[in-house]
């Protein structure tokens, strides 16, 4: 790690200004990706702008029938939230299955989605529910937010403020995780609700993606059986020590069926 300036602003505007004033500045929320990267000297920001002091970014509320989660709300807070458990239990389970207790008590939803790790859980939840990401500048539909591997639609100086989730009729999440990190080797989030029927896959590819064929099948018949025989091509899927692309492609089908079963249960 190299030396850096540390700032802890108390408002989003102040944070944005600090970001604009320091060319090599980096935002920090839970720090789970940034700090290890800095320790390994793979990142060397000149300044760290800590979002932890901005009260507006924290918390969960209901608003116009949607559930709105502030950017620096921890995974543990989402998992333990009464309103999330009541309205979108699949999202509470997703958050409760991220990493371990230490990770869940530091890691935040805003940090996770802004980083867009291909194996993170939240991207599947956001795309799988058709959520809206609100930044200090605009609103971005989840479908447009996650662009590519570690890449989002966020522009220079843009800060995630909160995420608004529509409440689905049914939703379920199933993942096959790396035993050490708990990252998704394959995670599938399915839902049926105001945003239609959605099937979003994380962990399998370089970026979260939807499976239209599965969505069509579930639109006609919301059951695990409806997904039987539907496969995803393995060509562009990830391969690593723990899972080949072929195995991941297979798991997408298995996890999608289990997500539907979890949702119907």
């Amino acid at each position, binding site marked *: 790690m190299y030396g850096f300036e540390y700032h802890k602003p108390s408002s989003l505007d102040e944070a944005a200004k600090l970001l604009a004033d320091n060319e090599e500045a980096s935002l920090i929320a839970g720090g789970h990706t940034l700090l290890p990267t800095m320790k390994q000297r793979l990142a060397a920001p000149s300044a760290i702008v800590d979002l932890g002091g901005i009260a507006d970014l924290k918390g969960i509320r209901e608003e116009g029938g949607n559930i709105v989660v502030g950017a620096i709300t921890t995974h543990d807070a989402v998992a333990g939230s009464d309103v999330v458990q009541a309205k979108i239990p699949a999202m509470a389970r997703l958050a409760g299955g991220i990493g371990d207790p230490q990770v869940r008590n530091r890691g935040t939803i805003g940090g996770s989605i802004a980083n867009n790790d291909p194996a993170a859980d939240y991207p599947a939840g956001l795309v799988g529910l058709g959520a809206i990401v609100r930044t200090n500048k605009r609103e971005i539909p989840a479908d447009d937010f996650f662009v590519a591997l570690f890449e989002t639609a966020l522009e220079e100086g843009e800060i995630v403020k909160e995420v608004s989730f529509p409440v689905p009729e049914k939703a379920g999440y199933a993942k*096959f995780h*790396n*035993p*050490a*990190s708990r990252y998704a080797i394959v995670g599938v989030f399915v839902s049926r609700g105001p945003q239609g029927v959605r099937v979003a896959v994380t962990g399998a590819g370089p970026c979260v993606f939807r499976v239209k064929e599965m969505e069509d099948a579930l639109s006609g018949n919301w059951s695990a059986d409806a997904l039987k025989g539907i496969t995803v091509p393995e060509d562009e899927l990830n391969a690593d*020590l*723990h*899972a080949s692309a072929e*195995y991941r492609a*297979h798991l997408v089908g298995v996890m999608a069926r289990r997500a539907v079963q979890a949702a119907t249960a």
Partner: protein
Amino acid sequence: MSKAEESADVAASVAEQPFIGQRLPRKEDRRFVIGKGRFTDDISVPGMLHAAFVRSPHAHARIRSIDTEAALKLPGVVAVITGRELAEFTSPFVCQQEGAAPMEMDALPVDKARFAGDPVACVVAVDRYVAEDGVDLVEVDWDALPPVLDMHHASDPGVPLVDEKIPSNLHTRETHRYGDIDGAFARADRVVKAEFRSQRLTHVPIETRSVVATWDEGREELTYYGAAQTAHILRTTLADRLGLSENQVRVVSPDVGGGFGLKLPLFREEFTVAAMAMRLKRPIKWVEDRLENLTASNHARDDAVSVEVAVLNDGTVLGVRANLWADFGAYAFYPPSYIINVIGWLLLGAYKIDNYEYTVNVAITNKCPAGTLRAPMAIVTWASDGMMHRVAEELGLDPFELRRKNMLSLDDQPYQSAPGYPYEALTLREGFDETLAKFDIDAFRREQADAAEKGRLIGVGIASVVEPTTYGSAWYKASGDDGSGHEAATVKLEPTGAINVTAGIVGTGQGYETSLAQVVADALGSSPANVDVRLGDTYIAPYGMGSRGSRGAAAGHGVAYLAAMDLREKVLGIGAHLLQRPAESLKIVNDEVVTRSDVGVSVPVREIARIAYNDPTSLPDGMLPGLEAHRTYDPPFMTFSNATHLCQVEVDAETGGVTIVKYRVHEDAGTLINPMIVDGQVHGGVSMGIGQVLLEETRYDEQGMNVSATLADYLMPTMDTVPMIEVEHLETPNPNTPQGIKGMAEGPVQGAVASVALAVQDAVARSGGRLEQLPFTPSRLLGVLRASRSG
């Protein structure tokens, strides 16, 4: 007296002892739970410098030159040293193996790096940060060579030598024959083949390798603080290689966060730090980071076993022929054939098989060197029980009946295995029968068939473990390896009656400070609270062979008990003099010498101690002052424990994931000193075995780069993989050791590797899957299931 009567006699005398056999909480845990343990990294010496190592980015590369100039200019860097410079004032380690080429290892490589992570230079600086910055500034001019990565093809024509001083990368090829193997195969109705392949693993102790070395310029002596399972042997090696006398070196092994066989040899980084402390006349610390630990400490288990079993149609096993391979990596910290030979002589497991032949092949490759990892022979139980299951499958017989038919029972013992090992007081068939009776295998087979109807795969595996525990010096002599199996202990009764104990074994978390206190307390009629145990400091402890294998109980505790019994004799002699009664009529109870019959006639041990030290003229005529006993003990050629493990699993037919639903261990480690500590050994060993079957694997890519160099990729068992483990003990004493102690620690690994592997095999057998390569990862298992379904 027959052996069985002797065993019963030992059992009866053990039952009279108040502390041996008690589940006493561990004395050492107090300091650990209050955070006051003292590990090597807790040691800080004024003026201490810090070391970091330059490591090879290539699996195999010649060192053209090393430029240290830029690093030396970095403020805070004190010294940079290369292998060439170290070789000027240190001696290499030479590993001898009977009948094979000796292998040399310099302090750091001089001409060539032999694996990715091989340390080639050391930077010493004011702190670790500066030292690591210095490492980045050392420029090595590399000439990359083709890496040798496949043990089976290591000696093919055109493959470069890994070690240019030996004639072939195939370091060892030797065959051992017992009985009439050709006759057995000639008489066989059938020959059944089976393969068992273990992956490369590493130890992953929580505390990585660590050292603080100090040089006392006044006394001209080196103090080496660092985990050392064999502290005295390490001292001898250090002195020899540094050109010092053995009384100029002190090794102190403080609290240790796990050894598992890793912390036995003198590693090159540790040796370099000691040499540099001497040269710079400054204390130096090095604590390995996890990347170094996973890539460059020691690896293990890269073994392959192929067997041919000659059988009659009724399931009688006539003979076994085995071909064993080991990938030993780049350097020899141990004789290359040592571990694979243990697999060889244990491979027949629990079975009575007279005719046996095994061939060992050991290849030197461009990978991290192999070492001893708790239960180096871990694969043998899977192989021995697994081959019996394959035989049963081919003959269409019930596997458990077939195993039972060929399995050793108490009635067969004493028994000598085909390779010449004495089996005594082992309850193999007895434990197997009891496990089967309790489990109800018939009911399980019905449940399994019902589950299969619903697409669920469940299976059971039962392992019959023969665990070698204590190697006597006769074993070393017979094996041709240097070394001894004896052990030493000193027990002192101090003037106030407090007892101090030390021995040559060195704790790495086993709870020795408690269990040694228990045996000594019983011998001296005291209590464990009155007994303090100090180990691991060569100033204090007598020269012993340390802690390796599972020798701690029979050798280490055996000798401490015997030393305490010698001291007891002196205490009773003084008591007899003071009480004017014959010594035979006296005993020690609660720190008082009392008569066996007359109540009320007694003298406190404390008074006896006072006289022995402060009033020696009151001692019996001719008795010398003081109350100290030192002695050594050489255990039998080899002692064994045994166990039966049962594991029940469910395999997820859609993902290949394995869940362990039941785990039972029926352990017979002879007389138990502290059953709670033994339970802990079982839990830990089983967890390691589960890790080996389901999770852990060190992987190299085709360039020889370690691609499992973080704990996100090298997968360790955690609490959600490890089930509740039920442990039952049978205590059949060994008739040839003090108190009938057998020892244990590695058997649980063998048992778990076998029972989990056999259970998973049983679960997939119905679909025709055959599993021969560990680990059974979900993707590998699913591949086997899908292949057998489509086949």
